[in-house]
C-alpha cells in the first residue's frame, strides 16, 4: 500500500472530441477550461481523437513535461480504451495504473444528445470525480501467472470440432467435451448444405475422423462440465463422464480384457428388446436401449440408454468375448487443468408447437425443416423419400413457412432472425423440385435474406427452377380432417389480398434457440448472455470471439445464429485467440488484489467467509491473529473490502480512500 500523497498529486486531463461523437454535444473547450481549475490539475488539453497516435503522444509528452503523477482521459469507456491509455501512460514513464478514465461518451454525450448544457455539466463532474481518484492512485505491478499448455472446447458440433482441430494442430493439448455420445452436432442431421449442395455427411465425416485421430485431442463424448475453478491460465475443470455402459477397446484393455471392447458390430442392439423413439431421427425412427446415435458416429462405440434399459443382459451375452457391455457402469468425475476454454454449445430448435396456430404436433402433415432434412436424406428413416406422415403418400404441393417463430415480437416466438432458415428453405425447395416430378414448393416469406457469398445467386437459381414465392406471414393453418390436406391462410402483401391455399404438406422453418444446457454451462464459466440467451461476446464488432471472462472464448451458433461457413470462421478465430495466451506461456492478471492493513486488522475473521474464492485466512503474527490474503486465489472483487468493519482491507485500485474521494469530489465539489 502506497502512502496517500494527495497534496503532491500532479494530474493531467485530456478531453477527447471523438470527432463529433463527444464534441457535437459537449462543449469540450468549456470542459477543458473547467478542468484547469480542479485542484491538483496541472495541465488540461483537448484533442480530436485521444486514442490516435498524436493523442497518445500528447499524454506521454505531458507526463514528462509536467512531471505528472496521474493521468485522466475523458473520452469513451474504459471498457474500450483503458488499455490504450494505460499504454500511453506507461510510454510517458508513469506506472500504467496511474491512469483513470472519465466516460463522457457512452454514458454521456450519446445518452444526452439533446441536452448539451446538462451533458457539459455532467462531463465536468465526471472529470472532477476521475481527478479525485487519479490523485490517489498508486503504482501497481500486474502479476504474471504461467499458462497451462492445454485448452478445452465445450461442444463438438462443426464449430467445436474446427476449434479443437486448430488448437491441436497448433501443438496444444485439447480436451473436446461433448455431451452427446458423438461429435458432429446438428450438421450431422442435415442432408445437403447450401449454396453448393454438397452432402453434409460427406464433408463432415472426414472432419470427425480427423478429430478422432488427432493425437493432441482428447475426445470426451457423453461428458458434461460439472464445475469450473480458477482463472485464465489455470482453469480446473471437473467433468462428468456419464456412464456409457460400453467399454472402448482402450478401456477394456485397462481392465485386462485382452482384445476386448466395442468394435461397433451392433450385435448387442440386434438382441436388445427395448424399442424407443430415436432422437437423432427426431422420433421418426425406432432405436434400441443400446444404440449408436447415427451410423457415422465418432467414436464408433455403442451407448446404453440407462433410462430405457431393463437390464435383461441379452446384450452382454451377444457381445460375448469382447466383454464390452457393462450394465453396472457408473458416472465418473475427472478434473483437468486448462489454460483457456472455448464454448461451442450450438442450438436447439424452438418448440414450434407453441405457435399453436400452425398446428405442429396437431396436424400430421405439418413438419419442421429439421424433420424435412431427415426425410429427404438417403440415410434417413424413409431412405430419402419425402412422404406425408399421415398416409405415406408423396406430397406434391408443399408450403414452406419462413420466419416460423423467428422475428416474432408477440412474446411467444423469438425476436431475432434465425439467419439460416431462408437459405435452407431455398435448398429444400430445390430438393423437392429435383426429387419429386411435378412437385411445387410454395415459399411464404417476409423477405428473403440471402446475404452470403453466392447466396443471392442461389436464390435466383431456385426462382428460375420454378419455386413459387408468396410474400406474407402465415396467419393460420387448418387441416381437412378427411384428406389430412392443409389450408394455409395468409395475406399476400404484394398483391394485397388474402390467400387460402390447399397443400399436401407444410414445412415450418422453425426458429432456433440456445441449446438446453447453455445457461448452466455459461454460468460455470462466468460468461454473460444477451437478452435472448445467446452467449455474449466481449465486443460486438472488435472482439466477437472473446468474452468478458479472460481466457474464455465463443465459437459458432452459441453466440448467435449463423450458418456453417460463419461458424467455422468464428471457430478458427476463437481457436487463434485461445492459443495466444498458451503460446505466450504467461498472462498478466490485473493487480486488483486485496491487502490486509495489519495495524487496523482486529483479527475478527469476518472477512474470511465473504470471499467466494477462499483467498482469506487468519494467521498468527507477533502474538496476535491477522488476516492474510493468498494473492493467487484473490480475483479482486472487493467483497471482503466492502465488509471489514475495521476498514482493514486495502483493495488495490479500488481502495476506500479512492472511492470516498470520488464520492466527495462529486458531492462536495472537489475540495477535500
Amino acid at each position, binding site marked *: 500500500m502506497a502512502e496517500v500523497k494527495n497534496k503532491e498529486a500532479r494530474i493531467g486531463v485530456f478531453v477527447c472530441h471523438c470527432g463529433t461523437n463527444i464534441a457535437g454535444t459537449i462543449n469540450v473547450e468549456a470542459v477543458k477550461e473547467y478542468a484547469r481549475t480542479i485542484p491538483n490539475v496541472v495541465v488540461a488539453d483537448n484533442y480530436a481523437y485521444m486514442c490516435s497516435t498524436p493523442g497518445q503522444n500528447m499524454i506521454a509528452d505531458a507526463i514528462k513535461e509536467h512531471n505528472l503523477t496521474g493521468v485522466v482521459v475523458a473520452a469513451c*469507456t*474504459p*471498457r474500450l480504451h483503458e488499455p490504450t491509455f494505460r499504454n500511453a501512460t506507461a510510454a510517458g514513464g508513469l506506472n500504467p495504473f496511474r491512469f483513470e478514465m472519465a*466516460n463522457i*461518451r*457512452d*454514458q*454521456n454525450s*450519446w*445518452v*444526452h*444528445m*439533446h*441536452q448539451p448544457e*446538462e*451533458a457539459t*455539466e*455532467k462531463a465536468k*463532474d*465526471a472529470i472532477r*470525480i476521475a481527478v479525485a481518484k487519479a490523485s490517489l492512485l498508486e503504482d501497481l505491478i500486474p502479476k504474471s501467472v504461467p499458462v497451462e499448455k492445454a485448452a478445452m472446447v465445450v461442444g463438438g458440433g462443426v464449430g467445436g470440432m474446427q476449434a479443437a482441430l486448430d488448437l491441436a494442430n497448433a501443438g496444444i493439448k485439447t480436451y473436446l467435451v461433448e455431451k452427446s455420445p458423438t461429435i458432429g452436432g446438428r450438421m450431422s442431421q442435415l442432408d445437403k448444405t447450401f449454396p453448393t449442395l454438397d452432402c453434409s455427411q460427406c464433408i463432415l465425416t472426414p472432419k470427425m475422423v480427423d478429430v478422432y485421430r488427432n493425437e493432441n485431442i482428447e475426445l470426451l463424448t457423453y461428458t458434461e462440465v460439472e464445475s469450473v475453478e480458477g482463472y485464465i491460465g489455470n482453469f480446473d475443470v471437473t467433468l462428468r463422464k456419464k456412464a456409457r455402459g460400453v467399454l472402448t477397446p482402450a478401456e477394456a484393455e485397462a481392465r485386462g480384457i485382452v482384445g476386448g471392447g466395442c468394435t461397433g458390430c451392433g450385435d448387442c442392439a440386434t438382441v436388445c428388446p427395448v424399442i424407443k423413439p430415436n432422437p437423432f431421427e427426431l422420433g421418426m425412427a425406432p432405436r434400441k436401449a443400446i444404440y449408436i446415435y447415427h451410423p457415422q458416429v465418432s467414436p464408433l462405440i455403442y451407448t446404453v440408454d440407462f433410462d430405457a434399459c431393463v437390464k435383461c443382459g441379452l446384450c452382454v451375452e451377444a457381445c460375448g468375448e469382447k466383454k464390452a457391455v457393462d450394465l453396472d457402469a457408473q458416472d465418473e468425475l475427472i478434473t483437468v487443468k486448462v489454460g483457456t476454454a472455448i464454448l461451442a454449445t450450438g442450438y436447439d430448435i424452438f418448440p414450434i408447437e407453441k405457435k399453436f396456430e400452425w398446428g405442429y404436433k396437431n396436424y400430421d402433415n405439418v413438419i419442421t425443416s429439421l424433420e424435412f432434412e431427415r426425410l429427404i436424406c438417403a440415410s434417413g428413416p424413409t431412405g430419402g423419400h419425402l412422404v406425408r406422415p399421415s398416409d405415406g403418400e408423396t406430397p406434391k404441393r408443399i408450403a414452406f413457412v419462413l420466419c416460423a417463430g423467428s422475428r416474432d415480437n408477440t412474446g411467444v416466438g423469438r425476436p431475432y432472425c434465425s439467419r439460416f432458415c431462408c437459405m435452407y428453405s431455398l435448398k429444400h425447395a430445390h430438393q423437392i423440385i429435383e426429387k419429386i416430378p411435378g412437385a411445387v414448393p410454395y415459399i411464404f416469406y417476409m423477405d428473403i435474406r440471402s446475404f452470403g457469398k453466392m447466396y443471392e445467386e442461389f436464390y435466383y437459381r431456385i426462382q428460375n427452377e420454378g419455386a413459387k414465392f408468396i410474400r406474407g406471414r402465415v396467419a393460420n393453418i387448418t387441416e381437412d380432417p378427411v384428406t389430412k390436406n392443409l389450408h394455409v391462410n395468409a395475406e399476400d402483401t404484394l398483391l394485397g389480398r388474402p390467400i387460402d391455399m390447399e397443400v399436401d404438406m407444410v414445412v415450418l422453418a422453425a426458429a432456433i434457440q440456445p441449446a438446453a444446457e447453455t445457461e448452466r454451462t455459461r*454460468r460455470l464459466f*462466468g460468461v*454473460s*448472455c*444477451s*437478452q435472448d440467451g445467446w452467449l*455474449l461476446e466481449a465486443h460486438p464488432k472488435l472482439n466477437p470471439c472473446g468474452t*468478458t*471472462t479472460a481466457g474464455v472464448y465463443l465459437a459458432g451458433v452459441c453466440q448467435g445464429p449463423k450458418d456453417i461457413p460463419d461458424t467455422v470462421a468464428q471457430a478458427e478465430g476463437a481457436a487463434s485467440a485461445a492459443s495466444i495466451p498458451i503460446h505466450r506461456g504467461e498472462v498478466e492478471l490485473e493487480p*486488483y488484489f486485496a491487502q490486509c492493513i495489519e495495524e487496523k486488522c482486529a483479527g475478527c475473521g469476518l472477512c474470511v467467509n*465473504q470471499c*467466494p*474464492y477462499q483467498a482469506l485466512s487468519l494467521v498468527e503474527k507477533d502474538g496476535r491473529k491477522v488476516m492474510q490474503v493468498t494473492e493467487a486465489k484473490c*480475483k*479482486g*472483487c*472487493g*467483497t471482503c*473490502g*466492502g*465488509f471489514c468493519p475495521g*476498514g482493514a482491507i486495502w*483493495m488495490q485500485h*479500488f481502495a*476506500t480512500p479512492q*472511492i*470516498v474521494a*470520488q*464520492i*466527495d469530489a*462529486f*458531492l*462536495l465539489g472537489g475540495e477535500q
Partner: protein
Amino acid sequence: MADENWKPKIIAIICNWCSYAGADLAGGARIQYPPDIRAVRVMCTGRIDPLFILKAFQDGADGVLVSGCHFGDCHYLEGNYKAAKRMFLLKSVLKNIGLDDKRLRMTFVSASEGAKWGMVMSDVVKTINELGPSPLKEFAR
C-alpha cells in the same frame, strides 16, 4: 420545494461487468435518459461498503443507486448477493436516521440490458424528484 432551481444529486455505484457494460450499451443504442446521475465504477457490487453510501448521504446526495449483475450472473459468483443483503440492512439504518429508504435503490442490469438501464435512470430520477432534496443536505460538509 424552497429552491426552484434544485436539481437532484444522485450517485450510482455500479459494477464493471454488468451494469457498467449495460450503461455503455445504452450509449451505443443512443437511448436517451435524464442527465442527473453520476457513476462511480467498482469491479463488483460486493466492493460497496455501506459506509460509502452513508458518506454519500452525509455529503448531501439526494439519492444513491447501486447496480450490479443479476443473481447468478455476478462475475465473482456471489458479490451481488452480499451487496443485496447489505443494502437491505442499510435501508433500515436510513429509515432510523430519518431518510426515506427510497433514496437508496439497488437494481440488477445485465451487460445486454441497455434499454433497462435507460429505464432505471429515468425511474430513479423520477423517484428522487418526487422526494425532493435530501433533509441531510443542510448538514453537508
